[in-house]
């Protein structure tokens, strides 16, 4: 199966040789290694947090100590020594930068290497008339650059680091923080509550359509540093916001831990679109190193007719444990999950979603595309739950797996719990292999082997890719080595 071996090579160019593996040399300021109450205090003090926040963190830390690491996911990794990790690492700088000119040129250089989309590079370079994307870049643990804040402010949109929000909008943060993902929700979420170092806060007021797409770049830089970011997005009644998250991490031999929490709240008639391109370092060809990505992402569709849409393209990380979910509380609310997950070499991904239908006439759509290559394991795990009081619920789920090698695994684990007889639940699943016939057909039309695989994979992912905002789609396609589908006609 020479063709498949070539296909394999193509996938490895997408995921294998990690081109973002560079280390920026900036003296960083770290907390002592390991986790203790003192470290939690250190982080809280570094962030200049009020007393209530410190108390909240300490309670979370106490709760976490009594919890156990989950082991139900189809992933295997050596036991993590939580005392062998630095929980805080900040680029050293006296004061926060007031403008981009003050940002360390090495950081900007890093962003350039990251391939932050052209539009945003233009923004960073201050090009006249450049498109509007606001970037809040999280370099290791501290937000270093926030653009367009003024313009957003005019629209009444708050877009800032979560640390700033805790100081400037404590009431809002108190009201919504952990309102979607409770402190004790799970082991990694509790850990995040105790030690999160930065992240993003967004508030879009009533009736406001956010005038630009908001974007945050996360990046893990220092050795042995877990990045624990925290994101909270609130869309008030009738508001709309589209949020883009891109992640990369440099190449390291050791495994780095990443345990983020993202909470979204949509009130009546509000809509939040959350898109992720995740290409954390996946480890080398022999499965050495790479990021452990244990993330809790959840949205609360609190208001009636609210809508949340998660779109993710996951190509990185050694181990992924991630289930962006929607709690559909408001009547008529809508939850969507569109996912492409690529695994190669020894990567393991256990990812999917939960759609919890609480309100009447709530609807959800799940489209998951898993692509496995090498010796990787790729699992879709999803829950569709309909509570007894939720009348006329509809769900449509489609899980497709594409196998590229003969040594990889694709697994689909759907859970469906329905307690209301009026619900209509549909589930479709397919598993297929990139076929020699397809490859040869493409090659006999002039495509080289890489282009052929890219084209077939592109077609396989089409249902998901079309939900990404355009500039993100371009980046995602680059990641998948795919030319833009549908750009003609």
């Amino acid at each position, binding site marked *: 199966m020479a063709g498949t071996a070539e296909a394999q090579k193509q996938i490895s160019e997408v995921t294998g040789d990690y081109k973002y593996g560079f280390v920026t040399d900036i003296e960083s300021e770290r907390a002592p290694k390991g986790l203790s109450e003192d470290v939690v205090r250190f982080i809280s003090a570094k962030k200049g947090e009020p007393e209530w926040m410190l108390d909240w963190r300490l309670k979370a830390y106490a709760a976490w100590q009594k919890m156990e690491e989950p082991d139900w996911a189809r992933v295997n990794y050596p036991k993590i020594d939580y005392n062998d990790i630095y929980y805080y690492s900040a680029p050293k700088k006296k004061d926060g930068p007031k403008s981009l000119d003050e940002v360390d040129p090495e950081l900007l250089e890093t962003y350039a290497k990251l391939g932050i989309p052209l539009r945003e590079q233009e923004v960073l370079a201050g090009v006249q008339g450049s498109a509007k994307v606001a970037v809040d870049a999280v370099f290791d643990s501290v937000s270093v650059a926030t653009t367009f804040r003024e313009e957003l402010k005019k629209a009444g949109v708050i877009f800032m680091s979560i640390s700033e929000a805790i100081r400037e909008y404590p009431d809002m943060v108190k009201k919504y923080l952990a309102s979607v993902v409770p402190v004790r929700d799970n082991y990694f979420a509790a850990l995040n509550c105790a030690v999160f170092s930065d992240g993003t806060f967004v508030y879009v007021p009533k009736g406001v359509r956010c005038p630009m797409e908001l974007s945050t770049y996360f990046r893990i830089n220092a050795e042995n540093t877990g990045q624990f970011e925290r994101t909270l997005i609130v869309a008030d009644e009738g508001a709309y916001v589209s949020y883009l998250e891109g992640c990369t991490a440099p190449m390291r031999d050791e495994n780095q831990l990443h345990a983020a929490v993202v909470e979204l709240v949509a009130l009546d008639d509000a809509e939040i679109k959350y898109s992720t391109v995740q290409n954390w370092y996946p480890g080398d060809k022999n499965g050495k190193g790479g990021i452990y990505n244990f993330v809790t992402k959840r949205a609360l569709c609190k208001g009636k007719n609210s809508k949340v849409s998660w779109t993710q393209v996951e190509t990185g990380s050694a181990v992924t444990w991630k289930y962006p979910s929607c709690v559909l509380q408001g009547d008529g609310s809508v939850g969507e999950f569109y996912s492409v997950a690529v695994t190669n070499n020894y990567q393991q991904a256990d990812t999917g979603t939960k759609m919890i239908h609480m309100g009447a006439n709530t609807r959800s759509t799940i489209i998951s595309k898993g692509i496995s290559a090498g010796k990787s394991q790729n699992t879709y795990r999803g829950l569709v739950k309909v509570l007894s009081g939720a009348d006329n619920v509809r769900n449509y789920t489609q899980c497709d797996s594409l196998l590229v090698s003969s040594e990889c695994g694709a697994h689909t684990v759907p859970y469906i719990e329905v307690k209301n007889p009026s619900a209509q639940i549909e589930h479709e699943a397919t598993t297929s292999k990139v076929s020699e016939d397809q490859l*040869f057909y493409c090659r006999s039309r002039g495509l080289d082997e890489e282009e052929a695989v890219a084209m077939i994979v592109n077609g396989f992912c089409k249902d998901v890719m079309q939900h990404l905002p355009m500039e993100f789609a371009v980046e995602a396609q680059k990641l998948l080595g795919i030319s833009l589908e549908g750009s003609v*006609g």
Partner: protein
Amino acid sequence: MSMLKIKDLHVSVADKEIVKGLDLEIKAGEVHAIMGLNGAGKSTLANTIAGRDDYTVTKGTIEFEGKDLLALEPHERVGEGIFLGFQYPVEIPGVSNLNFLRTALNSVRRYRGLEDMSAAEFMKLVRAKAAELKMDPDMLKRFVNVGFSGGEKKRNEMVQMSVLDPKLAVLDETDSGLDIDALRTVAEGINAQRRDDTAILLITHYQRLLSYVQPDVVHVMIDGRIVKSGGKELALELEEKGYADVA
């Protein structure tokens, strides 16, 4: 000079010899037909010319315009000007016909050192080709061959051929499974491709396509070899007497 020159070709598939010493020469401007029963090695020959993996050439040579074809990758052969029309065109879900065609055309252009064709120019070209071959323009937006009828798939092959405009078209049982109207359209497509500077190799079971596309040379293939060659009347003779008697 011959465009295609095959000498003493032996091809094995999974260690079984299928083509057993085949010679064939095709000049520019010519249409050749290879006829033969199932298992004679006709499709193996077509796939070997196009460069499919798993078709191992154990002996012999194939030259295309003086170049060693066997040294080239499948996509490079397309770049050089060879097109294989499939007996069973393959479905590619999620990829629109338009995107497929444009990617194919631009890959070939790049191989030839040309710039990519602009979207506008490409659309003009494809619409014209689709109209010539009586293809519903909506088919261009559909996924490659997905849900196409047998006739639509073959028509789609003709559109691809027409857009890529090869020097040598090898058409593997392009006439199979077609009703009479579809057969006529496909034949028109083939005839449109017939020029002084192009050549066509038709592979077929039946004589009926040859009523619409008149071949210059007809070859009879049995058990991996060409056993007899002649003019277009040979096809009629085959139809009448059967392979055993003619050979």
